[in-house]
């Protein structure tokens, strides 16, 4: 799965002429937490998030209410946004895990997806969590089995051979090194159209592998 497959296309964007107050209202009304600021041709100029609107008291001549109102009424998105050169972005052709890594490493909650300087989408934490569900085909019903197998070539083929013999249809597969046990891999397989008992009966017969978890998932 690539970024272009899971990003939000056509995100709501703000023109640089928009007032900060207006942008704040727009984000609130549309229930969004990130608002890219774009110029002509959807070129990325900057990014607004909820923190952009935190007022710096030092920027005000005084804390008089009228003074604050005057200041706010002149504030445009350009003044409060994180400028493009300081915004981490990602290309739509990167893999989704690479995007996730960038977001966890830099503690970002959102990456504008940029192609040739032009905003083509937005990748937020919510999009990644959605992608995660899609990878495991979550809303669909099926039996979810976790198989533990030694980390050596041919083990996974043994499992797929069994699945193939049964002519079961596999909806999703995920594999990862078993936590806290070196030399093993756990493979999560989601199969549709069978019962849990059927799955257990067949898969427990796979030589050298172990069913560590089995459950109905939907």
């Amino acid at each position, binding site marked *: 799965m690539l970024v272009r497959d899971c990003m939000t*296309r*056509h995100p*709501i964007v703000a023109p640089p002429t928009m007032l900060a107050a207006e942008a704040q209202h727009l984000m609130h009304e549309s229930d*969004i937490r990130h608002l890219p600021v774009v110029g*002509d*041709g*959807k070129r990325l100029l900057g990014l607004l998030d909820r923190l952009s609107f935190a007022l710096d008291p030092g920027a005000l001549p005084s804390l008089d209410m009228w003074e604050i109102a005057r200041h706010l009424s002149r504030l445009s998105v350009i003044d409060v946004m994180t400028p493009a050169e300081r915004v981490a972005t990602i290309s739509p052709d990167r893999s989704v895990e690479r995007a996730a890594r960038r977001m966890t490493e830099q503690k970002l909650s959102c990456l504008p997806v940029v192609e*040739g300087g032009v905003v083509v989408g937005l990748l937020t934490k*919510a999009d990644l969590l959605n992608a995660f569900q899609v990878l495991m085909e979550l809303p669909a019903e099926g039996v979810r089995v976790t198989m533990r197998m030694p980390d050596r070539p041919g083990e996974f083929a043994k499992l797929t051979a069994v699945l193939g013999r049964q002519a079961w249809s596999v909806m999703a597969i995920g594999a990862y090194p078993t936590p806290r046990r070196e030399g093993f891999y756990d493979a999560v397989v989601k199969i549709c159209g069978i019962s849990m008992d059927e799955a257990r009966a067949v898969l427990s017969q796979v030589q050298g592998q172990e069913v560590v978890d089995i459950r109905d998932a939907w």
Partner: protein
Amino acid sequence: MSTAPVLKVEDLAVAYKTRGGDVPAIRDISFEIARGETFGLVGESGCGKSTTAWAILNFLGPNGAVQHGRIQFQGQDLLGRTADELRRLRGDQIAMVYQDPMQALNPSLRVGEQMKEVLTVHRGLSNAEATRRCIAMLERVYMPDPAGILRRYPHQLSGGQQQRVVIATALLNDPALLIMDEPTTALDVTVEAAVLDLIAELRRDLDTAILLITHNLGVIARTCDRVGVMYAGELVERAAVADLFADPQHPYTQGLLRALPRLGADKADSALYPIRGRVPPPGNRPPGCLFAPRCDYTQERCRVERPALRPLPNGTCARCHFAEQIDPAAWTPRADLAPPPSQTAADGGAPILAAAGLKKYYPLPGDSLRDVLGLGQKRFVHALEDATFAVGRGTTLGVVGESGSGKSTLVKTLIGLEASSGGEATFLGFDLTDDLAGRDAALIRELQMVFQNPDATMNPAYTVGYQLARPLRRLGVVPKSQVRAEVIRLLEAVRLGEGYLDRLPRQLSGGEKQRVGIARALASRPELVLCDEPVSALDVSVQAALLNLLLDVQREFGTTLVFIAHDLSVVRYISDQVAVMYLGEIVDIGPAEAIYAPPYHPYTEALLSAIPVPDPTAPPQRIRLAGPAPSAVDPPSGCRFHTRCPRRHLLPDGGRICEADAPPWRDAGDGHRILCHIPLATLRALPPPAH
């Protein structure tokens, strides 16, 4: 991920300022379009569909103004924006595709320059990069040879290709909202099918929200998720597409569906019921329910109280006081709307029109010096090739085919607007291939024509009465003293009254003008009337009324009709015999029932499966004709259809015989003849297109 709609229109009202005061065009329009959703707006002409689209783009013109309401795009109000902000939005995030692709393209600029401008001006891309993207986008819309297309001028492309270029241009900036105003109306049914497939695919891939405006319910069924039905400037029903077709709530929607010709198995269940009356003009709308004057369920409350668009138990919204009580299944046509009983004389009497090997070639002027000196080889457009058919007295021959298939040439050759280049055509013993100037008045009297565009065929300066009286006088049909009485009789025959005598064409609606056109063709009491697409410019409800009128007239006067249409369901409804034309040749001819049932000629099969079926549950058809029709200057060798035939592979050797030899006529029985190499048994075994 936000769930806010891309476009949200609330209580929109638009009025046009005229000298007579403000004319309200639309009012109380509300709908939403979510990301990646297609919302259809459907209704007859003059219902405010396009005004709604223009209001969204603020293209209302100097005299149009939004009176109240809100239009929100991506959470931001579109109304009250400065011209500069709107320009940026339109360029970057909203794109529009219009009905006529030729009007959207600049004829004096190469396609490439027009497409690249979007990227170089709006995005500041370099020329090379812009070219690369344009080529990629043209490939995306399945244009053959995209690099070559960029170097061409718009007039060098076919209609379908032009519309693809327009769609590709609209998508270059990856808009969040795409507004399409009748994008396929100007296209042939086969091209339309391909463009509709393309729209559905692009929406899926690019997540673009689409507002699709059309008068064709079949297009709605094929492409939309939700639909709004407009009537006289109001939204009268808003529903998911499946609900709208399965269980229409508003009487107007029900009427529209009943007026739609369908490809039913037999004529009896494809009866058409027009909606009586016509859409009230914006300045003169009734105070209560706008549809009340035409509705079959009108009660006192409908005349005084304006209904609101209210939600109904099944999740749709309808603007009707009595939506819950109305049961469309219990509807019976009023006596004056009942369709004429179907024709009994399928084979009619003796043939009155017969053609054998009729040909029409147009010489093609060459531009080399040899050609100018007359030394070059003469080249011809083979517009009509070996047309052989016979039409019985009092029956109807329907002629269908894509544009450029020679339908109109056939009719023009018969009526004498074009001299034929070979073959025979006889009509009541007259030879139609004779010198045109020598045709005598008796023949002209018996052979009349109804044209496609009633506007272009009536003189705007003369009254209806004068225009009808003229042929009566010229041809001496009745004595001078009886001309007026005869004109009134003609007007009554086409269900118009004496009151139309002194009207000018501009005071008539499209349907009324076409009725006058039919009356004028009938004036000389002809034996044969040639109709060249007489209903294709009209709305479905009007079209239904005119088709029924033609059937009535035919029964009353025993007139024989040759009826050209590109709409196969219309031809199905009116014809006894159908001829399918491809590139100047009749490829499939026979009784209407036989044409619309297996075995099909592969071309007929492709035409049938290209029709957008007004039923969202119909399985999608996968037979598509590849590419545009080849040129009639050098028609393909062997079978003319072999370059696009989807069934050629059924023959051994990949159908090499189709390229080499002209196909034989195969007799499928009952007078049904198919021009194809594929044996009838194979054609019969093909699954029929679902309708």
